[in-house]
């Protein structure tokens, strides 16, 4: 008997009593102010936020930022989704030069519109799997990642160090409706 069939047979014979899926039972608390909530979460993550008027301003700001920084390899991408409760942005391989880019670069810069902010991860996944004409879409084709700040570790005596193995710096250029 193959391992697969053996395992499936063992699982079937375990006779775990039937339990229904609880469904959508969590009543999510929405933040009073979505933007403030996102900014606070970003601050906690060590993410720098620069508020801009439009996409061009964002690119300009990124360019001048790069000139100030001493030679950090920089990646600039645009995200279509940000999550307020944890200050994360969603990136997929379609908008990346390759999958390793947002991790390998030293400074990750992300353009995000305020209108693309959602309160929680529940809302985020709902957005990503929105039903279009009755068909639910896949959240990703091949690869996607929520990134919440620069890489970090506290593995040495619980001291927070920014710039573990991924990026050392993380900046969001937030297009706000001002």
């Amino acid at each position, binding site marked *: 008997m193959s391992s697969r069939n053996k395992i499936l047979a063992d699982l079937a014979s375990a006779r775990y009593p039937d339990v229904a899926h609880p469904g959508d039972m969590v009543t999510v608390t929405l933040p009073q102010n979505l933007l403030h909530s996102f900014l606070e979460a970003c601050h906690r993550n060590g993410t720098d936020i620069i508020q801009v008027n439009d996409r061009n301003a964002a690119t300009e700001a990124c360019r001048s930022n790069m000139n100030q920084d001493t030679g950090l390899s920089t990646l600039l991408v645009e995200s279509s989704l940000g999550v307020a409760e944890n200050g994360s942005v969603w990136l997929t391989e379609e908008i990346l030069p390759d999958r390793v880019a947002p991790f390998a670069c030293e400074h990750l810069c992300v353009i995000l519109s305020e209108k693309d902010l959602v309160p929680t*991860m529940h809302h985020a996944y709902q957005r990503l799997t929105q039903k279009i004409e009755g068909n639910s879409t896949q959240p990703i084709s*091949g690869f996607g990642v929520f990134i*919440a700040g620069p890489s970090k570790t506290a*593995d040495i005596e619980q001291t927070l160090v920014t*710039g573990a193995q*991924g990026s050392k710096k993380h900046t969001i250029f937030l297009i706000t409706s001002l």
Partner: protein
Amino acid sequence: MSHSSHASSAGAFLKDSGHATWHDETLWWIRSKRDNAVRNVPEWESLRQAASDIKKHTLSRLGYYLEQFEKKALENGIKVHWARDAEEHNKLIYNILKDNKAHRVVKSKSMLTEECRLNPYLEKQGIHVTDTDLGEYIVQLRHEPPSHIVLPAIHLKKEQVSETFQEHLNTHPGDASPDYLTGAARDVLRDTFYQADAAITGVNFAVAENGMLVICTNEGNADMGMHLSKVHIASMGIEKVIPGIADLPVFLRLLARSATGQASTVYTSHLRRPAPGQTLHLILVDNGRSAMLAEPQFRDALKCIRCGACFNTCPVYRRSGGHSYHTTVAGPIGSVLSPGQNLQAHGDLPFASTLCGSCSQVCPVKIDLHGQLWHWRQKAMMAQGGSPVKKAIGWAFGALLIRPALFRNLLLAGGWIGKLASLKYFRNISAWTRQRDLPPLPSQRFDQWYKQRYEQQK
């Protein structure tokens, strides 16, 4: 039994009382970070209940969801393998590496691969695996096992890390700052990633609905590994599958807050397909999980999402350290999982507890950890009988409690027992009695006192 009992290892750990106190305070501080994060989520208890129910539902038809996951994963181009036990898991990985002529392998955190003792197995076949999570990298260089499933090097001070890095990375002896040491490891590991020909990762969640893997890290090491290698092998316990995409946020909102007090890990990576030119292998591992599923008293331990919150709160873990547990996964969850794998070897672990229940309070998926510890104690006592001291105490109490008159008379003697117990000889019997005073014992038994009052009130 080739290892020392938890009690004796803990005794050794506690001899360095400064270090033990530091370890205790550090873990408690991590627990308090969790509390701060939880305070910001008013629906926290509702999330815990949802997570528990989703896991129970999944476990109630685990075979169905695994088959669904496999079907979707195969459609996505992921190669799916099944391993009954650790040996089969290790062999499978070795064969994949051999077929791909992979010699330089990087691995991100996977407690399952620790459980299966993958690294030593591959070393014997001449394949060196570099553990890339900073904490695991440090303990690997020191030839030690990790002492915590989320914070592998929590038992080490920075001076100890500095010594290890001086030896292996030629770091400067004068600088033991975490910034400097982390930077040194980053540079070495970047080289390692770029030269690796295979990457092994764990899996946090496998979504049956669309055959997708979710991997969470703070460092980004899993991604640096898997996106730079032609071969990506993901190892996963069969209990890690969840039904649908809509279930992900329930667990993701609980995981990092419970583990470290962060609202989320820095990176939450979702994989549905291998990258062009890459092969992605997924290994589904049983290794005792289907047997545990068949045990009504212990099956719910399979809900575990490996957050480590139970470790951080446990007063015994905090004051004995992960290495006292002589098992892959320490802490309360380890003490509930390991006896199932080997009661003979790990039967002492359910006793490494005060049954305070703090673990059950913080568990994001509501495993009744302290209840299961208690059940394991029954099993261990019945299988092994307990120490001679325990047997003697049990016998003495048994003999006493079935003799009510004797019991009542002995209680009367409580006064002079109290005086005896305060004598230096008896106080020094154990650390417990050395640090505690017996409370003053009343001169009357309760039934005498009650009868006297009742008579007075008549």
